């Protein structure tokens, strides 16, 4: 892929002190006395949204799940939509880090770090929702296999139980992966730090990393292994999430196509979120020379590709429904496109299938702002995809007598907005205090990083 386009490193710093410049570019952000005003504005907004989140959750805990619009037959609604949405976002990070690493897509180095950060924060947001939306939110720990005086164990036949393990593992492994990647950069921060406390903090995080080659050797090995572990994990998480639906009997959920379809969608949405974050980030923090247009273009291409996969999945669902010969299945899909929730279906199509098509034109896919716009659209579209799957299927199942129409409440939206607050608060803190770009890796793949030893050709 990288070959197909201009070299993403063309824009990168050159000359004898290239490495120093890279270091400087990245580290400066964290060392600024005062971050740019943009950061403060963004952080202010994020914090206020986070407060909304807190209030909403408080009220939810006090009064009960009824503050949401959930009803019979739509027993799962926006909280689950949000859960799947965030888990989806949480894919691109590890994917970029792991899969692209295994595929030797060196250009990933520019973006993998905060893609990973994004993953972790997204998974945090995701993880909160299932806990919130249970009827007795003080008891979800019953889903964890902890020995208890009741001598009861959770049921491992339940997809929700698989979820607990899948999402839990994914979060843990992503965090390990992320942290490990940052160890050398913490070292850099430590060595550059002027204040004692910074030195202490980053020193502790770096754990005395001094870049010994013997350590580098094991480090790279471990990194490769983690990447190799994370890759199937990424694919598994959303597959397992899709099992929540696929293993159910409900028309519109009960589909074998779900795992690949969900994974494609997740990658799609994940990358969309990456560009949504990358474009402003490179703007604010002057990383244009590290996160280059070429990088964005590559991601645009991935968005286009995965977008079409998703589109294929949409059409395939219809085919399968027809091919299955099940009246209920057929009805569900007709109902999706032309029933009371048609508006959500067509929003989804417009955002996910139509909007990425602009990337066929080079002009568009090299314009950061167009990319940003499409990224946002796709995020919206992916949220609606989950809305369509969860809600339209539930609202009209087997018996017409139990059909209903779900309307979200104020609280549904405040919680969704609040979760964005949580996400961006964490993300902005990350931008402010942690190495946003994997410096060591960027350097490693820098043209002048190649040691062409004089007698090294045997």
């Amino acid at each position, binding site marked *: 892929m990288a070959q197909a386009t201009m070299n993403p490193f063309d824009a990168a710093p050159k000359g004898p002190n290239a490495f120093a410049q890279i270091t400087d570019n990245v580290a400066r952000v964290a060392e600024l006395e005062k971050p740019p005003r943009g950061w403060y504005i963004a952080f202010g907004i994020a914090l206020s949204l986070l407060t909304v989140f807190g209030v909403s959750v408080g009220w939810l805990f006090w009064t009960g*799940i009824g503050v949401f619009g959930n009803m019979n037959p739509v027993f799962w609604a926006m909280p689950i939509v949000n859960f799947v949405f965030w888990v989806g976002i949480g894919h691109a990070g590890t994917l970029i880090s792991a899969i692209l690493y295994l595929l030797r897509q060196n250009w990933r180095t520019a973006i993998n770090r905060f893609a990973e950060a994004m993953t972790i924060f997204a998974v945090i947001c995701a993880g909160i929702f299932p806990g919130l939306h249970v009827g007795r939110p003080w008891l979800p720990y019953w889903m964890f296999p902890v020995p208890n005086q009741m001598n*009861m164990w959770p049921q491992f036949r339940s997809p929700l139980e698989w979820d607990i393990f899948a999402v839990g593992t994914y979060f843990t492994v992503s965090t390990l992966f992320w942290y490990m990647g940052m160890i050398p950069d913490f070292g850099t921060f430590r060595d550059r730090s002027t204040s004692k406390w910074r030195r202490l903090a980053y020193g502790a995080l770096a754990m005395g990393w001094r870049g010994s080659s013997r350590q580098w050797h094991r480090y790279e090995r471990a990194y490769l292994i983690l990447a190799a572990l994370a890759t199937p994990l990424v694919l598994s998480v959303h597959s397992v999430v899709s099992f929540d639906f696929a293993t159910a009997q409900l028309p519109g959920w009960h589909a074998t196509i779900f795992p690949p379809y969900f994974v494609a969608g997740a990658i799609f949405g994940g990358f969309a979120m990456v560009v949504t974050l990358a474009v402003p980030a490179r703007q604010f923090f002057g990383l244009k020379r590290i996160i280059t247009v070429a990088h964005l273009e590559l991601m645009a291409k991935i968005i286009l590709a995965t977008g079409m996969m998703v589109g294929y999945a949409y059409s395939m669902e219809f085919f399968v429904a027809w091919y299955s010969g099940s009246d209920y299945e057929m*009805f569900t899909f007709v109902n999706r496109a032309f029933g009371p929730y048609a508006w959500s279906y067509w929003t989804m199509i417009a955002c996910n299938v139509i909007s990425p098509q602009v990337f066929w034109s080079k002009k568009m896919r090299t314009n950061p702002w167009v990319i940003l716009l499409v990224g946002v659209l796709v995020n919206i579209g992916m949220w609606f995809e989950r809305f369509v799957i969860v809600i339209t299927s539930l609202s009209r199942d087997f018996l017409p007598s139990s059909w209903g*129409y779900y309307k979200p409440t104020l609280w549904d939206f405040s919680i969704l907005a609040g979760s964005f607050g949580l996400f961006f608060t964490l993300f902005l803190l990350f931008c402010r205090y942690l190495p946003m770009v994997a410096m060591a890796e960027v350097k490693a793949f820098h043209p002048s990083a190649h040691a062409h030893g004089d007698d090294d050709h045997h």
Partner: protein
Amino acid sequence: MSQVKDQPEYWRSLAELENDPEFLATVEREFKVPLDEEPGSPARRRFLQVMGASFALAGLSGCRWKEDKMVDFAKRPQGLVPGEARRYATTMELGGVATGLLVTSYDGRPIKVEGNPAHPASLGACSVWHQASILELYDPDRSQAVLKDGQKAEWKDFEAAFKTELARLKSAGGKGLYLLSSPSSSPTLADLKKRVAEKYPAAKWLHYDPVAPGDEERAGTKLAFGKPHRAQLDCSKASVILSLDADFVGPAFPMGIANARAVAEGRNPDAPKMNRLYVVESAFSHAGSIADHRLALRSELVKAFAAALDAQVGAAAGAGDAGPAQPKPSAQFLADPKVAKFIEVVAKDLVANKGASLVVAGPQQPPEVHALAARLNGLLGNAGVTVSYAEEAEAPGFFDQLKELVSALAGGQVDTLVVIGENPVYTAPVDLDFAGAYAKAKNRIAITSYVDETAKASTWHVPLAHYLETWTDTRAWDGTIAIGQPLIAPLFGGKAASEIVALLTEDVAWAAKDLVRRTHKEAIQDDRKWQKLVQTGAAAPTKLTGAAPKLQPIAPVKLEGGEAGALDAPAGQLEALFTHCSKVYDGRWANNAWLQELPEPFTKLTWGNAALFAPATAAALGVTDGTPVRLSLGGQSIELPAMIAPGQAAGSVKVALGYGRTSAGIVGGHNGDVQPTSPVGASAYKLRSSKAYRFGSGLAVQGLGSPDKLATTQDVHAIDDVGRKGTDERVPMLVREANLEEYKKHPEFAKHVVHHPPLIQLWEPPVKYDGNKWGMAIDLAKCIGCNACVTACQAENNIAVVGIEAVKTGREMLWLRVDRYYSGKAAEAGVAWQPLPCQQCENAPCEQVCPVGATMHSSEGLNDMVYNRCIGTRYCANNCPYKVRRFNYFNYHLDKVGLTPWHGMENDRHRVKAMVFNPEVTVRARGVMEKCTFCVQRIQNTKIKAKNAKRAIKDQEIQTACQQTCPTAAIAFGNLNDKQSQVSKLSELGRAYQLLGELNNRPRVSYLARVKNPNPELV
């Protein structure tokens, strides 16, 4: 009552709140979410309470384990074993129609009402009204004190004051003394009435009930026989039945339950002969819902129809000495080929089944129709076979009695008026202006169970005891005497009607117990015999018998106004049809939350009434479901939401009475000073007049803007074309139906409606179910959609009431629902019922998805729900193909939201309410899933009994609540492993099928396909 004492404290926190900015802000924010509602509706109150509670930090006190004491009698009465249920026979009366009941008492508290198998009007079944009456008993809104001019007073004050007034009146021979009470069959009241007449010759005792049956029948039979009679049906002997606008299987009809049982038994397609049911009616009734042929006619057209039929039958059967047949009436609609054909075929069929046919006239139809029905039965030789006539005393109709009273009041002849158990200020037709006239009486004494509209307008009010609180006696429609035992001492110091009346006749205060005993003393001398009668609750030998009376010639019916009209009525001249509400009757149960939240059988509307239009009429008027409309009739008008009712006769608008109460209570709406709540629905009495009493034409309808959301439990969302198409496609798969001939040809047809691959198991089932294997069979051919099972389930299983907003949101709680599917074209639409409990699938989809194993399978095949283990992921409900699982979105039982450790017994209101709950069933808290369990508590009780007695459980020994109360015995429950059990036999039938069985869930409920017996000539 200490409740009154508690009130101030109960409200203090609120009072503080009223102007607390934070609180107001929260309310403000709340206005966006479904939790908030118009002031006073239940959820809103819950909300207020939680704010109060949270500010009062009541949580702190509640965060420790609560210890509970055990208290017992020092010397316990014989036979009263704590925790062991006992059954007492009693009887309940409604509009003079009595039903024998068997009430379950737990620790000396009544908790459940069932029918009394020994009573001919019950046969072990009962109606929603009986089932829900237990909730009224424990309604804290019931009147709790004697009131003088609205001020609290003592019983002895009233007694003294009343006595002095009586002394004064007695001297005048009772002149100016009036009593108004519900029509009653009670021998005790009859006896007292005699005594009153002796003691106060000039006094008048009148009866009124806005919807009670009987008036028109008495008048009609008088036309036919010269003397008033009452018709007693024996539907079991009838193979062809014609209903003239009569819901004779409905609960409000005399012996309706018995009729339903008989008709249902006659509709068994597996029996050699199956009866045929023709129904002519304006709005869908229970009878109409099971009819083989139904003709939708405006009520006002039925008279002409009857006359035309008489003409036909008279011609065919020969009038004999019963005078000439009716001349063919000249009504436009009779020209309609469909109607003509119908009349011809029906006449033919009736004549063909001479002596085995039956013609029933609706209680709301004018006397002529009853006369013609009687005549037809006579001509057809049915009298004495399928129907017998027992002579009745001459008595003016209830409406006329009320009119008489009003004129007396207006004429100032009424000095003292004692109103017992009725609410005329609310229920009187608007043009009588009862309220205005009432004020003219000097002493207005209201003996009512609530401080209702009439009590508010009275000088004295005395709480009337609930029928479960006092001794009563009734005579069923067939004359059977039943003694009503009290199940508990009056909770709020209420008095029995007989006790009040006894004040007039006796010098010392008499207890109802002694009054009832006195009445029957000479008939039953021996106390042991008396005890036996009390125990069984029904005495056989007192039946009324009637030799077939001689028919008299009936003058040709006169047709006026709309009565001779066309099939459809012009827009301004629509027919207004005022009926009792199948839930709150005439409004007396407006404060009964179970009934308010019960989905109306056809519209599935809860919490309110609506104006029902035929689809054609609605289209013509441009109104649809939920459109607010103004109904104007005779200068009066009310506003109601419109609803489209397939099967409704064109040009006829049905409005249920009994709503728009302004003094019912917190549930039904009241404008009192504590916790005022807005009325539920709108009062159709404001439209009802002497001219349009049962029904009348001249109704004008005006739409008022765009539709509002209605609180219905089915078709909650205006169904779009996609949805309607989908529904039409699948209904035949869900409710499988065939004609008798088809069924005889293909007895297995129901099994081949849905084609699916063979249903194989991937694995060995982990359990063999070789012990008890519980299963259910529901006969769709028998179900009349009366809802009794639904309320029985609610009463048995402590199912919460959620309130109108929650129902609108779609959070109804009823475990058992009766699905209603319309079929066919608008006016000729048919309707099919499908009671839907949990199907207890052997491969239950709900179980595998629960992460904590809160729902799992028992070794007897029950799909158990472990409330305490449930954390409320709601995944099970998503995966249930039948959507029979229900979720507690809030703490509905605690009537306050919030994370509260209290168990809802903080004040006496709660303590009163809590008494209605079945102690053997968990009262579910917030956040847990719940569902039908086949009444597992009943199963366990019987298993224990059988185990102690070291015997096997007998078939039919365990009855689920829905099964026990079903008037038509459409539900069978039992052990599928016992091949001799009723349920296995039914499940073996050819027409047995399993709903969505193709999903291989292996449901334990079998539905018996609906089989109709249409007349080939009409198909």
